[in-house]
């Protein structure tokens, strides 16, 4: 791979470019799923290819290929340059990159148990045991369980002398119990919805998740939801579990702080941001107890957004985003950092794979733990609604007005659950919501969640992002039950 990367870089630089970088990547994936006692999808996927990015006369060009012959690589390099030159027809100003030192490094993420060494029979046996536990509960009408393992090995080289090799292994697993009866359909998932929990770990994650131990409870809750009262409509104090809070962070903080989005790069698809440049350092984004960082470093934890260098060779960093409630930082790249007066990119350029161009993406965007105990979060008010596990998520194209739904809620009185509630939704404006944050539980309740399916870009790219959060309480938030208006 190193030779291939060097060859591709040479194919670009000998044609005269202002800058070039190359990512050569090999990837291995395994996906196993079950449904109602039978295997669903059982498959593996291997891929290799090269992506060549060039700057020619101030314009970007990018070409990716899986034809890794000398001719194939040469053709891709020539095409990248041809594409960059064509950009002159609609050009406003030259792309300029802030400096980044050349790095030479090799890194491999921690992986105690290689997931690819685990026989698939073992994967299936565990999923089928979980499935049996779920369907043992009367009233469960469908059970789905899945696991996914991915390893990516990438060599990055650029015309400034960087040569970086990184290998990242991620694992994930989860399940959902569905209950249908008389025109009602409910579901409960563990450890999270839409594919479960995913982290930068090996198979040890699967063992840590205690999948079998939670199946009975999850199945019973799915059935119980069919008879539960709908979530009341009104303004209530709202407590969110850490997984739903992770999604809240992703949608109402993580996306708006993407500086390329702020500058209009995503206007045609993913949208723009309410965080215009004049807000930096001024906007009171949240209450004073709200502190958010964007941290790709290994020290932050084994998140889906953890690495040592981003996909344009910038070292992983920790950036404060919200400090004591004030908005203080964006996610930047070498091209955009100067727009906020930064001398250096804070290293958030990521590409889905070799075939796609790197874009500013969330790394690990996390709410730092607070000081309250869980009892204080739940017991700090007389009456609240507590919601768990995301079911739906929708936000406007400037990331301002949102509506999120969860799988389950409970009415809380004097710190105790008094009744289960179905179809809970809540809505608000991003900044108003975060300014109503009154209590955040401490580090012992903090989990680094993985969102494996964040979409952005044209052509669209899917990226895994990490979000750490502890349960937290928000004052007087509009809630209701999912229903046509």
């Amino acid at each position, binding site marked *: 791979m190193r030779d291939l990367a060097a060859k591709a870089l040479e194919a670009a630089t000998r044609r005269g470019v202002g800058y070039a970088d190359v990512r050569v990547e090999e990837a291995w994936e395994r996906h196993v799923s079950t449904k109602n006692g039978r295997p669903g999808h059982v498959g593996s*996927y291997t891929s290799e290819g090269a992506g060549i990015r060039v700057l020619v006369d101030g314009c970007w060009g*990018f070409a990716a290929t899986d034809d890794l012959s000398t001719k194939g690589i040469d053709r891709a390099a020539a095409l990248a340059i041809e*594409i960059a030159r064509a950009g002159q*027809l*609609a050009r406003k100003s030259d792309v300029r990159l802030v400096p980044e030192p050349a790095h030479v490094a090799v890194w491999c993420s921690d992986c105690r148990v290689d997931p690819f060494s685990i026989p698939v029979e073992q994967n299936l046996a565990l999923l089928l045991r979980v499935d049996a536990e779920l369907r043992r509960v009367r009233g469960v009408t469908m059970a789905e369980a899945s696991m996914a393992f991915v390893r990516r090995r990438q060599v990055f080289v650029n015309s400034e002398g960087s040569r970086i090799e990184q290998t990242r292994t991620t694992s994930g697993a989860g399940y959902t119990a*569905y209950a249908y009866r008389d025109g009602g359909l409910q579901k409960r998932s563990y450890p999270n919805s839409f594919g479960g929990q995913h982290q930068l770990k090996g198979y040890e994650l699967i063992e840590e998740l205690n999948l079998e131990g939670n199946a009975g409870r999850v199945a019973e809750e799915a059935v119980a939801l069919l008879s539960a009262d709908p979530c009341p409509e009104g303004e209530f104090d709202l407590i969110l579990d850490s997984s739903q809070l992770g999604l809240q962070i992703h949608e109402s903080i993580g996306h708006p702080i993407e500086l390329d989005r702020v500058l*209009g790069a995503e206007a*045609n698809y993913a949208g723009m941001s309410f965080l215009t440049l004049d807000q930096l350092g001024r906007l009171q984004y949240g209450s004073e107890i709200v502190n958010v960082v964007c941290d790709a470093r290994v020290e932050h934890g084994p998140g889906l957004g953890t690495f040592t260098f981003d996909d344009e060779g910038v070292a992983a960093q920790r950036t404060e985003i919200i400090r004591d409630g004030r908005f203080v930082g964006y996610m930047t790249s070498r091209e955009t950092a100067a727009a906020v007066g930064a001398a250096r990119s804070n290293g958030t350029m990521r590409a889905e794979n070799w075939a796609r161009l790197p874009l500013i993406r969330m790394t690990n965007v996390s709410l730092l733990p607070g000081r309250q105990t869980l009892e204080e979060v739940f017991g700090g008010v007389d009456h609240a609604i507590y919601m768990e596990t995301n079911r739906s*998520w929708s936000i406007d194209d400037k990331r301002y007005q949102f509506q999120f739904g969860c799988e389950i809620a409970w009415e809380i009185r004097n710190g105790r659950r008094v009744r289960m509630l179905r179809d809970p939704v809540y809505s608000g404006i991003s900044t108003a919501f975060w300014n109503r944050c009154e209590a955040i539980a401490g580090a012992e309740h903090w989990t680094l969640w993985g969102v494996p399916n964040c979409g952005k870009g044209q052509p669209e790219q899917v990226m895994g992002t990490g979000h750490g959060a502890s349960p937290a309480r928000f004052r007087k938030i509009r809630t209701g039950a999912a229903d046509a208006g």
Partner: protein
Amino acid sequence: MPAESELLPRKRCEEILLAAQTAAFRHGVEDVEVYFHASSESLTRFANNAIHQNVSERSVVASIRAVAGQRTARASTNRLTREGVQAAVDEAVALARASEPLPDLPEMLGPVEAARVERWDEATAHCAPVERARRVAEAVGIAQAAGLTAAGIFATEETVEAILNSRGLAQYHCETMATFSMTAMGADSSGWAKSSATAAGHLNTAQLAERAVRKARLSAKPKRIDPGAYTVILEPSAVLDLVGQMFPDFSLTAIEDQRSFLKDREWDRLFAPEITIYDDAGFPLQSGAPFDGEGLPRRALTLVRSGCVVELPCSRQMALKKGLDPTGHGFPLPNEQGEAPVNIVIAGGKTCLNEMIASTAHGILLTRVWYVRETDPYEKTLTGMTRDGTFLIRDGEIACGVRNLRFNESLIRMLRSVELLSPSVRASGEEAFDMVAPAMKVRDFPFTEVTEY
């Protein structure tokens, strides 16, 4: 002679199948299938009136399925050397043997009559970067002349889908697609237009740019209106992105799993009599291969006639289980979903968009919808936002732009409340796959919140 792509010619597919068969025989496995997907896609993206991302990507993937008794599994790779194919076969066989048996696993399909549609345009397959850039420059010029900022894409691609197996199945389809989309933005408004076609020459990108500009200008100084139930006119892209959310439920497997909104009412009159929906891979304005994930030719279905569900897709696996005929809507095996329609044609009416507007005393015109998510799976209640061109209609005319609104509406209720349909066109959105759809006038569409812009 049917079209063939240099990206992955038929002969190359046959060579890879032979290599896969040879590798499989060494394991004592006779049944092997290779599903090919090849694409060469180029996309010129612009924002702030300049090209800012300009990319091209080429990949050829072979997905190899091995069958060992009633067990099956799949290994996919883009390493298509003899060694790479061997490794994928080794993996597929190992996974299959390690898997649990599927009692209703159908046998591999034998030779079937080749399904054919012609969706290939040579000029689109070889569209040069400078041609894409020229079209973008023209579109940007239209926005700039109006004092607006443009963002969008112009993309061209060629794709190959093929399925060959050890029993003589040999399906091959190649096609081209061009897509143009533009958002024009003013100080406090925006407008959007998007279209796709199998030939780039059929896309009038200048006209689409002008449409986006017109909407941005018309929606300047947007007024704030109160949430509530309104008569709405949904342009075809908005219809597509809403109605597209229900088609995974049009599946016998989904009904059997009790996760479809059609469960216990599959043959009821669910929608207004004006609603008729087909699934027809051969329809002239459609795209995609004329065969399904197992290589079976796609049969045209009448999903809904005059508001009643009439036919439902059925995979070979479900057909075997239920004693029915398969319809050619299955996904590659093994899978959990079973089947779904993917070539939707919603029958249109005779009322053009301008006539719909003229017929409306008080209502809202929606260009598109955004971030559409299901909140109630059985009532098919969706939430989402309006975006890029939302207008108040008063006394049969567009009165002004309005700030964007959030809706929460049941698709069942929406399709019961349809009053008028326009002729159908090929439409493209961002929340569902392209389909042939009309504009719709719908009464009592509920908006629940307003955003700040």
